Structure formats: structure tokens, C-alpha cells
């Protein structure tokens, strides 16, 4: 299963997102932000790609200060624009 990442703008917002993900039943792991990801916060939330649609819904509904979703393609993380 491919991995995805949700990145937020601040530590505060990442923790806020953790709560929202948890409430929505999204299994995730907070990890250090891979260097190439363009977010200002140093932590990101990693989860299975199968949970991406739900994660998108949660982000939209919770009005989080969002920096972007990324999908792992081999060694690199590609920003998910709007798929």
C-alpha cells in the first residue's frame, strides 16, 4: 500500500489535525517532515493511501490550516494537486 502525507502549517495545526483524524478513525503516524515537502511545520501525518478520501473530507470539514497532501512515489513525495 502506498503511503500519503498530510502537511499543516504549524505544530498547533498538526496536533489539531491529529485530533480530527483520530475522531474520524484515520490511522496515522506523526513523522518528521521529509525535506522536500513544502510545509512550514516540521511534523507531518503519514497514513495509507486508502484513507486519502476520508482524510481530504476531514481537512475540508475541519477548516485546518492546510499545507498539502503528498503521495509516495518510490523515493520521493509528490504533491497531490486535485485528484
Amino acid at each position, binding site marked *: 500500500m502506498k503511503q500519503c502525507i498530510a502537511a499543516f*502549517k*504549524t*505544530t*498547533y*495545526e*498538526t*496536533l*489539531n489535525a491529529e485530533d480530527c483524524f483520530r475522531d474520524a478513525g484515520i490511522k496515522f503516524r*506523526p*513523522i*518528521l517532515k521529509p525535506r522536500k515537502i513544502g510545509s*512550514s*511545520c*516540521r*511534523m507531518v501525518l503519514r497514513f495509507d493511501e486508502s484513507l486519502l478520501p476520508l482524510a481530504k473530507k476531514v481537512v475540508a470539514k475541519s477548516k485546518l*490550516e492546510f499545507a498539502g497532501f503528498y503521495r509516495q512515489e518510490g523515493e520521493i513525495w509528490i504533491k497531490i494537486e486535485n485528484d
Partner: protein
Amino acid sequence: MKQKKTIYLDNAATSEPKPKAVLKAVETALRKITASPGRSGYQMAHTADRFVYDCRKRAAAFFGLEDASRLIYTPGGTYSINVAINGFLKKGDHIISTGRQHNAVTRALDSFGINSTELAWNEDQPLTEKLFQKVMNKKTKAVIVNHASNVDGLLYPLKKIGRIAKKLKLALIVDAAQTAGLVKIDMKKMNIDMLCVTAHKGLLGPAGIGILALSKNCGLKPTISGGTGSVSEGTKMPADYPDRLEAGSMNLGGIAGLDAGIREIQKIGRMEILKAKTKLTEKTCRALSKIEKIKIYRPKKKENRIPLFLFNIEGIDPSELGDMLDRKYGIACRVGLHCAPSAHREIGTYPEGGVRFAPGYKTTITEINLFVKAITEIAEKKSKEKR
């Protein structure tokens, strides 16, 4: 009549004693939450992140702030006031202030080059929009209010001020040093844009930690710059809150103490604390007012005051009186100008100042009786000397 334990009546300066829960929370934080929040990815750091986040949420809820990311931790009330004034206003702007303001406000306005006019209000007159319009000019951007005076306890009608400020399109900055934890503060309902809070007074927490809470639409330029753990590659402070205004490593012990103070107040009941202190203050006032040559300074109406007051005994220098209380009776009261010369000017006690009575949540009736006895003795001795 020397007491073994000091009778501490200086709770407007800082609360004493600190609740056991506060001491324990500070110690636990320093022992167990030992990594720096916002800086690293290992689990210990994440625990610290989570801890600060939870405290921030609880504090925001306590003050009626919807978006907890706009609750900034600062090193205290003075710092919060400085960051609010400097971050919101620019040199040459004008602000409406209150006569009862603390030097934290007076000096910050002066040092940042902000012009101010004091609102000419006393409790005998209605607080109207007109009063604000009289002191407004084209450069007026905000109103700054000392929610309650640390000198005589005058409590400003904040809800009303909030309504007027909103109508006049002025931002409202509130110095809540004397009221946070004692008087209900709801930023949303009171239309407060910048709330400046200190932990070590009514919130029963440690000194050196405070809060600056910002309303949704209030943007501030940073006063202090430095590391935040975010957008580290840039030379500018991050755009997003709270990082924008929180440079440098965080005071975890302080945050823990502040949080524990809030929870302790919720446990005891804010109203219970207010009622108990009010009862003691009223009793003391009644007893002292029977003493000849005593002058008590405090607002006339109950709804316009918090439980503390200022007093003087005619013919006795306040410093001398404070010294006698301390040395002979083991009673600690603050005397002088209380870092608020303009408040003393308004009250009519400048430049000598006065003696302040400020009980705490643990002050007892026995202590109050001993205080009244001490003042009675001092006043009687003085009048005998004169004869």
C-alpha cells in the same frame, strides 16, 4: 502580638500560597516533559508538543477564545501588553486609555511612540459612546482598558466598552492582570481583540508566564524574533499563529503551572473564590471604617469593584504604616504607588500613595481580625501621640 506566619495581604501583586496542584504540575512538567516542544520529531518532543497543545486549548476555552492557535504564551502580563501594543499600533497612532492603567501600559505606549488620551469616566456617570468620541481623533486605532485597577479595585464595565469599541471600529485591548481567574472573561461576548493575561495573580499560577489571546481578525506584527521550529530557512517570523508570536524555547514549567491554576479555579469555582474574597473585603472595610482618621479608597458601587482596596491613616506615611504592619504584626501589604501613578492621580492619592489590602483565596477570618486589630492599634497610638 508577633505572628509566626506572615499574614499575606498582597495578593494583587502575586497570589500566595500557590495551590498544591500548581506546584505539582510544575514539578511534573519539569521532570517528565523534558524535550523542547515544536523543535523535533522524536516521541519525547511529540509528548511536549501535545502537552502544550492541550494546555493551549484549555486556556482558550477558559477565556472564550474559539481558535486556540491565537492564544500566545508570553513571559507575563507586561510582555503581553507590550506585544499587543507594539504589534498592533505604529508610532504616531492614537489610543484611548483608562486613568487606572498600570505602568505596563503607560510605559509601553511611551516607548513605542503611541499617543494616548485617558477616558474621562468615573462610576457616577454613564459610560457612553459620546465619552469615547470626545477623545477620539483620526489616528485613534484602539482602546486599552485595565479591566480592574490594582490600586483601588475599580472594575470597568468591559462588555459595554466592547460594544462601544466595536461600534466605533476600534480594537479593544484588555489588561486582565487583576481579573483573569476572578471575573468572568469571554473574549467573544465582550468583543475583546487582544486579551493580556498573567498567570501569577488570580490564576494562582507561577510568575513569568502569561497569555496574549487574539480575536479572529486581529493581526499583529511580531515584536520578538527567533527560532520557532517552523519555516527555519526564512529570516522572517512565520505568518501563522501561534508560531508568529512565539519565538524561543517555551516555558513548559510555566505553562504547566498556568494550566493547573486554571483547573484549580474550575475545581474550586471562580464564583466561590470571588464570593469568599468579597466577604472578607466587605467585613474588613466595615471594621476599618469605624476607625477615626482612616480613609478608604474604593468604588462606591458593588458592581464596579473587585475585592481589594486602598487606605491611609491620616498623619501616617503609607511607607511607615506598611513597615509597622510588617515588623510589628507580621502583615504583608504593598504600599506606595503600585506601579500605577496615573491611578493614584485619579484617586487623589498621588504622590504619597497608600496601603493596599488584597486578600487571597486562602485568607482566613482570623487573619482579617488580626489585621483589623493591628490597624486599630496603630491608629489609636497615633492619635494619642498627637494629643
